[in-house]
């Protein structure tokens, strides 16, 4: 644990000791990253904002459990990941979960791309393909590529072994490539005016 007075770990220890003001600094440092993480998983802006708020409420509620061991970033993303997992299960139970394959591109993403009409088609395909990956693979890829965590850290965050993280990354990329290729073909067919068939072998998002 570092003893730099401005390090995340030090700030969190101060929050634990009753200096709640320091949580504001941690919010400034992490809220955008957390928002991005939740958005890439849920594709929903409102829900992502709610989940960010929930992360900090949970940090405050369980601040006495903070030990200062390891990186603070791993700890906060572990909380974030658990919250997302709870939310996902809740939504599935209540029937609120939208399967991206059935609903198409999410509304929020349509909003982004409407303003960027000349957006590279490949990037849009990649986003659609990411939406279709199962949650565990998607999380592993996002935490690795976007958030920059090492596989060991991702294992701590997601509560599994480092080997399993590598398997998810490996298979996730393999699937991503296949889905991008498939979506690319469908798009070409759409552009040329032919009817698109739904492939019965395509997997839906599952845990």
């Amino acid at each position, binding site marked *: 644990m570092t003893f730099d007075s401005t390090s995340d770990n030090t700030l969190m220890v101060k929050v634990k000791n009753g200096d*709640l003001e320091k949580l504001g600094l941690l919010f400034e440092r992490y809220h955008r990253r957390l928002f991005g993480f939740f958005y890439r998983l849920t594709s929903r802006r409102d829900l992502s904002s709610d989940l960010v708020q929930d992360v900090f409420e949970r940090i405050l509620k369980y601040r006495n459990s903070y030990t200062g061991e390891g990186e603070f970033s791993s700890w906060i993303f572990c909380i974030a990941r658990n919250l997302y997992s709870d939310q996902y299960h809740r939504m599935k139970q209540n029937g609120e979960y939208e399967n991206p394959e059935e609903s198409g591109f999410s509304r929020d993403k349509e909003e982004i791309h409407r303003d960027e009409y000349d957006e590279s088609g490949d990037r849009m395909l*990649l986003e659609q393909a990411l939406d279709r990956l199962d949650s565990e693979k998607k999380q592993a*890829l996002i935490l690795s590529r976007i958030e920059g965590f090492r596989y060991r850290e991702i294992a701590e965050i997601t509560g599994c072994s480092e080997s399993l993280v590598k398997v998810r990354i490996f298979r996730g990329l393999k699937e991503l490539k296949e889905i991008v290729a498939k979506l690319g073909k469908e798009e070409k067919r759409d552009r040329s005016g032919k009817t698109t068939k739904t492939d019965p072998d395509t997997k839906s998002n599952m845990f």
Partner: protein
Amino acid sequence: MINEKYIDLVTGYLQDTLDDEERRKFDELVESGKIDWAETREWKALFHEMGTVKVPEPDPTMNERFHAFLKAEQQQQELEQQKRWTSLLRGQLPGTGQLLQSLWKTVAGTRDNMRKMSRAVFEIRRYAYVFGIFLTGLIIGIYLVDRNHQEEKIDRLTAEIYELREMVMVTLLDNHSAVDRLRAVNISMDIPPEDQRVAEALLKTLNNDPNINVRLAATDALVRHASNPEVRIALVASISRQESPIVQAALADVMLELQEPRAVEEFKKLLADNGMDTLVRYKLENTIRQL
């Protein structure tokens, strides 16, 4: 197609974490065609491309929501602190309750000083009750007043609690039980060192208490008050009054810690005693040398 048995090398390659040995092995497998280089590069490109996926700006109200939540939590924390002060004053916290209970038991058990101590205890209880009522009223008053002055009021309450502790300490120091007198010295550690009455009580204890352990504890407690010049002079004067070698040695340590040169003459007076314990003599000589 990339074989899963090379998963460690391929995932290491994706994150650029291969060490030299692993990199060498990876290159060999690529050269031999066992790892499909074209496909690996496609995966790497895809992995890299993921970083370009855009995310909208967060809702601007997110900041406001968080800060409103934090403010509410801070207010809740202050409220809980006030409740704790109230409990302390009413003797509901374990330390204070036990202290007052012990005082009462000690007083009740002493035949000779019963009447005198009862009066003293009665006075203390009366003061404690008065303080309790006063402070309760004060706390209620504080609660109804503008919360922006919280810190000032908490400081006042803190000062009043210190006064109560001082009163208990001074009373216990007059008690016949060495355990209670020791307890009194320990209580002094929770009172700010600027308190003159506490320093005087500790000096009196150092010079007059019949129990060595109590005098030793008073010696240690007085170090906190050593920034007061009068306390330092009194500590030096106390040296020649001590007959116990243990207390003499403790005072030598204190003088060394304080770097008090005025103690040298007093130690020399002690060394004139031929019957002094050899180890203490050695210690005093050493202290004189260092001062």
